[in-house]
């Protein structure tokens, strides 16, 4: 198939960016979206134009590196990661718009690459269990109820890609935050620090410039791992409890 691509080009964080048009020909429907961009980049290199920078790594839907807004949708028209999106989801002759994640807390680094290190700092604020290596009790000495362990697993599937933030009109990271709060909050190992954790992680979230949640739900719709919206209710409940407890 032949396609017209409108792609955001931005030299670096300081420069202004702009959309530019490119055409690619002979795209196979078996290609992944990123392989289609590889093809364009090989073409640009031949023409003496600097290839387009974009983040990607495992290309099997798990590392969370890939982060493109495709026709205004995080990761494009399917519920998946950009690397697992294939060209058969598009039509011959189509024009496709490709932009970086859009959020104040995710500044553009270059072209389609944004800086998501705010997520690391939210985890640093308390997204862990404070256990030192070598001091752990025997694993089966603390049973975890199966239903709670299942829920913890279901939300621990978050890959930290940031699609929830990019999709949210408020640029909120509440789904990401709620997933971690719920993951650790459902397990017995996460209880001792539960109240302090939610308070400090929420404070860091706000400090980073992510917006507030108004329950629009775009986040869960864009999440390639289908993290459910109820983690945000859990987040709010835990936050209320922690405030009552004086955190």
């Amino acid at each position, binding site marked *: 198939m032949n396609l017209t691509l409108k792609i955001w080009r931005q030299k670096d964080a300081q420069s202004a960016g702009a959309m530019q048009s490119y055409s690619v020909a002979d795209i196979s429907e078996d290609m992944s979206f990123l392989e289609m961009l590889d*093809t364009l980049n090989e073409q640009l290199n031949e023409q003496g134009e600097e*290839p387009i920078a974009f983040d990607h790594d495992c290309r099997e839907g798990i590392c969370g590196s890939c982060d493109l807004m495709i026709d205004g949708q995080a990761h494009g028209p399917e519920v998946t990661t950009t690397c697992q999106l294939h060209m058969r989801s598009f039509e011959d002759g189509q024009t496709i718009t490709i932009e970086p994640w859009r959020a104040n807390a995710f500044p553009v680094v*270059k072209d389609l690459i944004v800086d998501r290190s705010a997520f*690391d700092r939210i985890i640093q604020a308390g997204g862990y269990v404070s256990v030192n*290596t070598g001091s*752990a009790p025997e694993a089966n000495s603390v049973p975890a109820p199966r239903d709670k362990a299942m829920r913890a697993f279901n939300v621990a599937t978050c890959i930290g890609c940031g699609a929830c933030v990019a999709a949210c009109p408020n640029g909120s990271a509440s789904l990401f935050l709620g997933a971690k709060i719920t993951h650790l909050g459902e397990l017995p190992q996460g209880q001792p620090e539960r109240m302090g954790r939610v308070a400090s992680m929420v404070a860091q979230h706000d400090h980073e410039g992510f917006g507030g949640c108004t329950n629009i739900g775009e986040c869960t719709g864009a999440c390639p791992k289908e993290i459910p919206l109820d983690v945000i209710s859990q987040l709010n409940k835990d936050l209320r409890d922690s405030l009552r407890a004086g955190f």
Partner: protein
Amino acid sequence: MASTADVSGLTELNGPPEQRSDDAHGYYTPAAQKLVDAKAPTGLIKDRWTTRKMDNRLVNPANRRKLDVIIVGTGLAGGAAAATLGEAGYNVKSFCYQDSPRRAHSIAAQGGINAAKNYKEDGDSTYRLFYDTVKGGDYRSRESNVYRLAEVSANIIDQCVAQGVPFARDYAGLLDNRSFGGVQVSRTFYARGQTGQQLLIGAYQAMERQVAEGTVTQFTRHEMLEVIVVDGTARGIIARDLVTGEIETHLADVVVLASGGYGNVFYLSTNAMGSNVTASWRAHRKGAYMANPCYTQIHPTCIPVSGDHQSKLTLMSESLRNDGRIWVPKNKEDCTKDPRDIPEEDRDYYLERIYPSFGNLVPRDIASRQAKNMCDEGRGVGPMVGDFRRGVYLDFADAIARLGEDAVREKYDNLFDMYERITGENPYQVPMRIYPAVHYVMGGLWVDYDLQSNIPGLFVTGEANFSDHGANRLGASALMQGLADGYFVLPNTIRDYLADGPFEQISESHPAVVEARTSVEERISKFLSIGGSRSADSFHKELGNIMWEYCGMERSEEGLRKAIDMIRELKAEFWSDLKVLGTADSLNQSLEKAGRVIDFIELGELMCIDALNRRESCGGHFRAESQTEDGEALRHDEEFAYVAAWEWGGDGGQPVLHKEDLIYTAIEMKQRSYK
């Protein structure tokens, strides 16, 4: 366990190997003396690690914060090591090329992690895990290292559970586990098909906790490009900030490489696109030995290549072989037909035919090689890529008829969905197509029992070292090694080295530091100034084709010689015809790629020389010249039970081959048979 001669580990069960063939003559220089792991412990095998931990010296807590540790890589081995050494109070600097440590490629491991917990009371033990691992590695790993791995395995699970890793549980809330990879006991702990992700996030969170504490400083989007070696000792690294392009000098008292494997030398593999050999290869060029580089694990159940555009291969869980039947058409002319129109009598269920007792569940190396044989005979299926059809059917029609579609869906739903997303075909209706792909490497930098390379102060952990897997790796043992090294082994061995500190201060103007930095800067300007016509990617693809064709699942003396010539030509062409646009002082992915590709090219040449020298079939490495009468892999223990550790011979020079004998004291070597 009939082959156990002596569980004590006090008697040598084999003599030193004596190599008779010399296929690589003219390509290498033999070392004058045998390489000895001077730290290899002796005595009762079960006591060796305990004794070593006691014998290794301690570092006073007040002195630890004065000691700087650099760790390159943030996967299971690097992330776990950074967290643990940070907790201990050392001053840790952690580097990764990704935008966050959480994206290291350990995240993609699916199946599970082994541990000798014996929760199912089915006869598992440290000794049995040790035995299975040594046997599975085709007796080319180190006995003491593997025993230690099995010994600490149970602690890994405790540690991860305490961190909140959501492993599968039974209805009583206790940990569940399953059997995996042909092992007869249940010892594999798992978190659905995302065990690697959950374990990595546990290590990452532990590491971020230390970042908050201030003991670990993380440098993301940084790539290590050189080791600084001062008076024979590793004292730091030169790294490039991938965003600004700035070349940075980072000095330390000790350097740990936890930078993963180099399967991307084949271009198409299941590795992440960014996984590379640069950290290891730069260390190799600085004098660190590269051991058994030709040992590659090929995984039999990947989604086949669909065309020349393909950038990577995706693994399908091996568990599919429990219910799927593997076949190809008996007649070449049927290969283009719809498989549903090929009648039963025209199908060749070749694994069931050749290996009636194991059938579709033969080990990875055998399943892979037979798939290749079928395609080489012209009976492959799927799209024509080049002049080949590279695929065999994995058919669930019988399982669906027997169990019903719902039951099959329940077991394999996410895998079937993933397959359909990638191929556009519905595997409930049309048989899946699979083909082997490069998955993991067992070779890596040579280390002693303490995980220290032959360069003092340079330690190597996880997939980046060579020591634990031998010539083959069993399912669920890679995650175990990464975390064992990072959480438990390295922290206990590195302190003996650090006990000699504080070390002499080095300044950035030291000639060795200046030399390392200058060489990096010159290399980068060279890449940008060649001004040729080909992208780094095109060289990488060409290298991958050569490696897969001649140094992949089946290798021959003739093919390997040809490959070495082709790689040398490719290398010359790289230096004269490379085209990298953009600048050095900005984010430049083509420039990053160029540096990695030339390192892969040099490594590829060494892999071929290593494979050429080793005239035996072992693990995933099948030498055409070494097979049994019925075409099975044939090892030659009396000639090759050694570690091949290669020393860099200089640009234009020949590598030097050091041999470390593998002497077993607790397990007797036996040929594998699956017929």
